[in-house]
């Protein structure tokens, strides 16, 4: 095997592993191909935007942004309000996005600032911050709404008179985005408008990377110290990355929920961070490098796994739960793997550069000194 082919396999090990895994699991599960294709198309339209929200923080050297959940919460708050005011259709979705905007910006700023206080530990901090914010979110949604925050529609409230009910139906805006441009090819429903929006935001990311601020962000991500010395406002740039990420997550969550058609007030946002991050990593991204192809490939593979695992598990040992646990194991495991690979590489490089300083040893490492954990 030529060296170039071998390098291809090593670089894309994770993706190849998953393709093989899924190729085996699909026939075992017994699910028909057309069903899978339709599901994947729907899920691409639904989830891709959220995964794209993760790209900028990675570029800025802040690692996997577990704090994107904050954006999801903002998006949900927007949706709750427009449902309360009964604004329907595309105007409803747009209004929800506009409402979520200031909330996302504020939460993103908060998240970025806190992460700046914990340099080197951005990922854990974002991880815990998401849980913390979840508590505040619940305080708002379960106790303040209906009492301090006026809610016009009493049907939205719990029986005790305040607090939003567990399940909020989005009948007014359900599928509004997906059916805006109805497209049917070979018997499959394609959410054309959602794809258009995804293409637009992808283009935005690509364009942003080339702007001055985008270049600053990349520089800050590669090496904080050198960028700072070069005059780049590293702290603000990092916060900006998180703010944009949070705003995109808010919009992404709105797109996600309008497709599902219901909000689960306390839990719709919870797993979204983990799923999006796992999908991105399965698509071949790493803690320091991620691009649009990683997003698309990742969403497809991750969701295929999602779909076939329960049935495959059932057919293998008669328990659907096996597939479920396997799927969760894979999600957690791929994140663990990505983190280990990243830290391992970083430690090895640091050791190498230290060895040269001591006089002797492997050639010095030249990058990833702005590491995030």
């Amino acid at each position, binding site marked *: 095997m030529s060296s170039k082919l071998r390098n291809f396999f090593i670089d894309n090990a994770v993706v190849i592993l998953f393709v093989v895994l899924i190729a085996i699991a699909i026939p075992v599960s017994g699910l028909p191909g057309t069903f899978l294709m339709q599901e994947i198309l729907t899920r691409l339209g639904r989830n891709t935007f959220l995964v794209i929200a993760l790209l900028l923080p990675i570029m800025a050297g802040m690692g996997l942004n577990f704090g994107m959940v904050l954006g999801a919460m903002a998006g949900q708050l927007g949706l709750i309000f427009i449902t309360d005011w009964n604004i329907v259709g595309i105007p409803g979705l747009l209004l929800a996005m506009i409402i979520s905007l200031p909330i996302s910006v504020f939460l993103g700023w908060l998240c970025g600032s806190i992460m700046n206080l914990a340099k080197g530990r951005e990922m854990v901090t974002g991880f815990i911050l998401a849980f913390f914010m979840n508590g505040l979110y619940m305080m708002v949604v379960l106790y303040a709404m209906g009492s301090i925050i006026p809610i016009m529609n009493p049907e939205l409230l719990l029986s005790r008179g305040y607090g939003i009910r567990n399940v909020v139906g989005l009948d*007014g805006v359900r599928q509004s985005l997906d059916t805006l441009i109805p497209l049917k090819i070979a018997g499959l429903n394609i959410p054309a408008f959602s794809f258009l929006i995804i293409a637009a935001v992808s283009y935005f990311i690509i364009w942003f990377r080339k702007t001055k601020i985008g270049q600053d962000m990349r520089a800050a991500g590669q090496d904080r110290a050198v960028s700072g010395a070069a005059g780049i406002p590293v702290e603000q740039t990092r916060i900006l990355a998180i703010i944009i990420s949070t705003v995109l997550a808010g919009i992404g969550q709105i797109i996600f929920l309008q497709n599902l058609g219901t909000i689960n007030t306390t839990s719709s946002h919870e797993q979204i961070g983990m799923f999006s991050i796992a999908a991105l990593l399965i698509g071949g991204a790493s803690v320091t490098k991620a691009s649009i192809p990683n997003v698309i490939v990742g969403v497809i593979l991750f969701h295929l796994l999602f779909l076939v695992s329960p049935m495959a598990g059932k057919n293998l040992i008669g328990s659907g739960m096996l597939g479920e646990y396997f799927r969760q194991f894979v999600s957690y495991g791929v994140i663990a793997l990505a983190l280990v690979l990243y830290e391992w590489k970083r430690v090895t490089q640091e050791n190498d550069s230290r060895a040269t300083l001591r006089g002797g040893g492997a050639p010095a490492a030249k990058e990833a000194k702005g590491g995030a954990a």
Partner: protein
Amino acid sequence: MTSRSLFQRSCVLLGFIALSVYLFYIGKGHMLLIDTNAVTINGKELRSPETIEVSIDGKPAESMGRAERILVLVGGPKHSITIEVLSGEDKTVEKQFTIPTFMDSAVVSVPAILGDAPPESWITTFTAPPVEEAPAEQMQHEQDTPEAAAQASPDATGAGQPKP
């Protein structure tokens, strides 16, 4: 912050606010009750024909008899109603009407429209007790508490503390 960027940011903010108001206006949902009950306007009693077919905004038509109400959910202020009379004199009437933004439920009176009553009398606010026909329920009533749902949420959970 320079005064120019302050001006720019204020413009953007105002733009968003204006956009929000606009979206609110064109997106406000309404519950229309198409009503064929007899109404009395200006002393004259107007009644609906025996069978008609009604269509709102070009949606599939529904047939109605006398003294009935059907529910149609719409979004936005301006709508059209097409009434096709099937019994007696065949005629088709198409009219445009506007729902005030803050009127959540509106009764649209078919006899008033057919009887050429003044447009202000076509739409009235719906205030009576709930209609017999199953209204589209947007949220189901559940008795579960949020605490039960919060228990299931992942966080720094004290793993199953025994209740005192």
